[in-house]
């Protein structure tokens, strides 16, 4: 078997007496789209946090990326190594324009010189189909969908090998979700491995090659998406209450 892009072994995160992530292990293969689902509070975002070190690492367990153990690295070093994420809530640098946001990501995350960065900024914004007329506007003046495009583009501009998306479809309309679907496929075709946390199951099932479902911080099911969603334990977790 080839070296996975990302492997997590026995990851745990505790907050006092609460185990938000409990002994989670999985692998993500290079070039795939790996979906993560689960009810609210199941530990999906916490899992992203401990993998990227933002704002904390795991309480126990190991995270390996590109053959290197990264769970003790500072967050910016993990990002520079090529493991880039987005956030569930709208994250933005309100005073910076799309151009400026991507420029600093290219320079700091991608280690690019300013002149090279300008070309890559163009490419990344074109890839996510960002409106050229709105590139110099302040980020806090953009629409919800444009902010999502910007957050993804600001990751792509540094040429990451793995992109971790935390509920990118939240707050979007149905046509926007369809555009996002096409965008994720297009990004994946450029060779970027994608981890996708999503509540919009139609999107998750449409793009994911494998799906993992979490509940109470533990893996409930993992495998082919169509099989996983028919798993009785998954149906119970989503529809049968949490008792």
């Amino acid at each position, binding site marked *: 078997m080839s070296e996975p892009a990302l492997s997590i072994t026995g990851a745990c995160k505790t907050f006092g007496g609460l185990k938000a992530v409990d002994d989670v292990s999985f692998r993500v293969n290079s070039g795939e789209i790996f979906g993560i689902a689960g009810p609210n509070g199941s530990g999906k975002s916490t899992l992203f946090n401990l993998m*990227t*070190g*933002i*704002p904390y690492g795991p309480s126990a367990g190991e995270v390996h990326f590109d053959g290197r153990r990264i769970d003790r690295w*500072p*967050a*910016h070093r993990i*990002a*520079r190594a090529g493991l*880039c*994420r*987005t*956030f569930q809530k709208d*994250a*933005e*640098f*309100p*005073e*910076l324009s799309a151009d*400026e*946001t991507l*420029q*600093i*990501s290219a*320079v*700091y*995350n*991608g280690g690019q010189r*300013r002149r090279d*960065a300008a070309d890559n900024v163009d490419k990344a914004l074109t890839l996510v189909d960002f409106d050229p007329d709105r590139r110099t506007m302040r980020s806090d003046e953009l629409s919800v969908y444009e902010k999502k495009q910007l957050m993804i583009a*600001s*990751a792509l501009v*540094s040429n990451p090998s793995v992109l971790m998306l935390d509920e990118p479809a939240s707050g979007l309309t149905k046509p926007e979700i369809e555009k996002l679907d096409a965008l994720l496929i297009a990004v994946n075709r450029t060779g970027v491995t994608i981890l996708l946390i999503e509540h919009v199951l139609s999107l998750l099932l449409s793009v994911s090659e494998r799906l993992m479902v979490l509940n109470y911080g533990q893996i409930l099911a993992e495998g082919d998406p169509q099989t996983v969603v028919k798993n009785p334990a998954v149906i119970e977790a989503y529809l049968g209450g949490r008792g």
Partner: protein
Amino acid sequence: MSTRARDILVPLACLAVLALVPLVATESYTRHLFIIAFIYGIIASNWNLSLGHCGVFNFGHLTFFGVGVYTAAIAAKTFGINPWIAIWLGGVTAAFAAFLIATPVARLKGIYVVLVTFAFSQLAMQLVLSQSQITGGAEGMVRIPFMRIGDYSFVRDYKLGYYYVGLGLLVLSTLFLLAVINSPFGKSLKAVRDAEDYAESRGISVSTQRILVLVLSAVFTGVAGGFYAIYLRVASPEVFGFGTLALALSMVLIGGTGTTYGPIAAALALTFATESLAGIRGLEEARFIIVAVAMILVLRLAPGGLLGLLNRLKI
């Protein structure tokens, strides 16, 4: 007029006016007020770099100024170093002091940054007071050598020379700040200020940027301190006092955090305003209360400061 043209032409017009002021204001006192305003302008605009652009609540900024004051004073008086060089040494030692304070502060947040940086300023003052054989202690240092160019003495020209040195330093400091603010580093400071986690996720080390911004903000503040000591020919521990700190902070907040020229404009306005109020009977001591009230009103009604308000109104 486009925003870009306005951003270039208005400061240039102001600079031209300031360059011509000594032709009109020929007496020493008015020129002295301008020189003090230039010094405050440098302090406030550099403080704004760390506070306004990066969101670091550094209450030890005046320490960098004090370090510059004593460095230049000791260099010029004790070691006989040319005052022109002593001024710049103030910037070097202030940057070093900033590095010392920044390293423990870089990982702190909120009120802890205020507490540690303020404690550092008190520590610096106690150091100056306790090392009286070097610093003159509570009495400070006097008769510090003045500037001259060849036979031209800066103490016999009704402060004309010092006026242009002060203005020149303000211009250099502002050009330095503009270069920093408009660079990717300057943009990264705003990213750190507004969304720390997002900044980290884009490869920006929050603690490194905080250390760098404190060091950079100290350079011209220390140079201003050096100039202050050479100009007044005095180094006194009062420069570490709360009064100076409060006045400089009010300039940053009233002028507008995050704006480039706001703190400079506020430094000019407040220096002349407080001086005018000092000349009105009954308001000699109340002037600082008036400044404090103005600061509270601005924070309440225009949190971005007066220049920030003008920018928002597109004036």
